[in-house]
C-alpha cells in the first residue's frame, strides 16, 4: 500500500473463489477465516468473496433462518482479521426494516464500513430471489484505503444503469460479488461466462475503472456455478483469472495509475454532463406516465 487521495495507489487484491456449503453459516465462516488468513499471509490489501458466500445460493425457505444483522457478533472473527486486511463478503442480511436482503458487506479496520443490498434480485426462470428477499434501493460508493469502491451483486451488472451510477460517483473499482449459474455449453467458454466477460470488458473500457468479478464454484440443487473470477483493468485487460469450477485464491496487483492515464487519454467522465442525463431521464420518466 502506497499513497492515498488523488495519488497513485498500488495494492493487492485477493479473489476468493469459494464453494460455500448451502445453509451452513458456521462451516462457511471457517472457510472465510481460512481464505482470509491465507490472503493476509500473501500481504493482500483486500479479499473479495462471492455473493452469499456465508450462506450458499439456493436457500429457499432457509433464507430467513440464515439471515443475520450486519452488526451480529457472528462476524466478530472476521472483524478481528479485518484489522489486517479489508474483507468483502456476501450474506443474507436481516434488515433493520424487518426485511431480508441479499447483501454485500465491506469490512475495514476491524469494523463494518458499508453494507450494500442487491438492487436487482432476479425472479424468473431458475431464479426466485424476490420470493425470499427484498430489493435494495441505493448504490453505495465510498472511500477506502484502495480508493473509491462500489459493490454490485451478480444480476446487478447486467443493468448498465447501475454500473453507470458507480461511474458517475467516480468509483475507482467496482467489486462484483456473483453466484452466476452456468448455462450454454456450445462455445469454447460457457455462454454465460462470455456474456459476463464481454459486459465487464465494455464497462471498464468506457468507464475507465477497475472491476473485480468474483464468482463462486460448486453446485446448489443442480445449479452449477462456474467460477471464472477475474480482475479487469480500465483498458479491458484481464489481470488475473481464477479458472473454471475449482475453488481458488487468486491475486491481482493493481496500479490505480491506470485509471488516471485512461481518463486523460479517453476523458469520457470529464465530458459527461450529468445534468443533461438527468434532464433527459426525468423527461423519459414523466413521459412514461402519460
Amino acid at each position, binding site marked *: 500500500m502506497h499513497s492515498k487521495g488523488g495519488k497513485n495507489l498500488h495494492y493487492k487484491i485477493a479473489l476468493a473463489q469459494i464453494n460455500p456449503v448451502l445453509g*451452513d453459516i458456521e462451516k462457511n465462516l471457517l472457510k472465510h477465516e481460512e481464505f482470509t488468513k491465507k490472503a493476509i499471509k500473501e500481504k493482500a490489501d483486500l479479499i473479495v468473496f462471492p455473493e452469499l458466500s456465508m450462506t450458499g445460493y439456493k436457500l429457499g425457505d432457509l433464507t430467513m433462518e440464515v439471515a443475520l444483522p450486519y452488526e451480529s457478533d457472528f462476524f466478530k472473527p472476521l472483524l478481528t482479521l479485518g484489522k489486517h486486511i479489508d474483507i468483502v463478503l456476501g450474506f443474507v442480511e436481516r434488515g433493520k426494516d424487518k426485511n431480508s436482503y441479499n447483501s454485500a458487506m465491506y469490512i475495514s479496520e476491524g469494523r463494518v464500513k458499508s453494507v450494500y443490498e442487491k438492487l436487482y434480485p432476479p425472479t424468473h426462470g431458475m431464479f426466485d430471489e424476490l420470493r425470499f428477499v427484498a430489493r435494495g434501493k441505493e448504490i453505495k460508493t465510498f472511500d477506502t484505503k484502495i480508493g473509491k469502491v462500489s459493490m454490485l451483486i451478480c444480476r446487478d451488472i447486467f443493468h448498465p444503469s447501475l454500473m453507470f451510477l458507480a461511474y458517475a460517483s467516480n468509483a475507482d473499482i467496482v467489486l462484483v460479488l456473483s453466484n452466476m449459474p452456468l448455462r450454454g455449453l456450445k462455445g469454447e467458454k460457457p455462454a454465460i461466462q462470455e456474456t459476463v466477460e464481454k459486459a465487464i470488458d465494455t464497462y471498464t473500457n468506457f468507464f475507465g475503472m477497475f472491476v473485480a468479478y468474483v464468482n463462486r464454484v460448486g453446485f446448489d440443487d443442480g445449479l*452449477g456455478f462456474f467460477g471464472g473470477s477475474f480482475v479487469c483493468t480500465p483498458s479491458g485487460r484481464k489481470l488475473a483469472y481464477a479458472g473454471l469450477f475449482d475453488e481458488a485464491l487468486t491475486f491481482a496487483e493493481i496500479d490505480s495509475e491506470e485509471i488516471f492515464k485512461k481518463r486523460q487519454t479517453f476523458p469520457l467522465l470529464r465530458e459527461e454532463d450529468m445534468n443533461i442525463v438527468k434532464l433527459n431521464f426525468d423527461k423519459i420518466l414523466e413521459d412514461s406516465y402519460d
Partner: protein
Amino acid sequence: MTDLSLNYEVLSKFLVYFIKEEVQSNKFNKVVLGLSGGLDSAVVAYLSAEALGKENVIGILMPYKLSSPDSLNDALLIAKKIGIKHETFEITDIVDQYFKKINTTDKMRIGNFLSRVRMSILFDRTREYDAIVMGTGNKSEIMLGYTTWYGDMAAGLYPIGDLYKTQVFELAKFMKIPEKILNKPPSADLWPGQKDEDELGAVYRELDSVLYLYIDERKSMEEIISLGHSKKLVQNVIRRVNSTQFKRTIPPVAKFSARTLGIDFLYPHDMGR
C-alpha cells in the same frame, strides 16, 4: 437440422464436478446404477467412475428371459472396461411369478413392471452399499415421457437429464466409449426387437431438433413446422411432452395448511450437507 453441438470437453468436466459434489451433498460416497448395456448407462458409469473413483461405482445387471443376450454382454463389457464392481440379478423368476397370476399380453404393462422391479432391486442394493441410485435418463426420453414413472425414472441424481439423446451420443464418442455400444440402435429392451425410434416414430436426431425448438427455444408448433419439420412429428412430440408432465412434477397435494410440500415448503434439496 437444428445445431445441437456442445463443447464436450467442458461438458464432461462439468458433469464430473456435478456428480462429485451432488453425491457428497446427499451424504454418499458410492453410487449404484443399472447397467443395461446401452449408451446412457454406459456414459453415466464412465462419468461416475471418473468423479468418484471406480471402486465407488457399482453396476447392477438385471436381465429378463426375453432380454437380448447382447444387452448383458455389452453391460459386462462396460463394467470390465471401466473396472467397476458389478452384480447380475436375473429378474425372470420374480416377474414370471407375478404374471403367472395376471393374465396379460399388454407389452407396455409388462415392460413397466420390469422397469419397476429393476428399480426395487437397485434401491435395495443401495442399503447394502450405502450408496445412492444414479439416474441414467436423458432429456429426450424424460421430456417425451418415454420412461416408466417410478421405474427407470426413480433415482437420486440425473447427471445426463439435461442432455438430448444425440448429445449423449456425441459425449459418448468424445469419452471413447466402445464402438459396439455407440453403434447399436437405442432400445429399452423390454421385449424382443423393441426399438426407441420405431416406437417414437422418428430418429432421435429429428426428435431432438423438435424437442430443442419447443423446449429450449419455446417455439410454437406452427413455428417449428415452418422450419421444415413434418406436422405429424411435431404434433406427436408436443402431445407427448404435454401429456407426460405429471411424471416430472410432485403430485398435487390438497393444500390447506400454512406450509405444504411441493407448494410452499421450499427448502432446497441440498441443505445441510
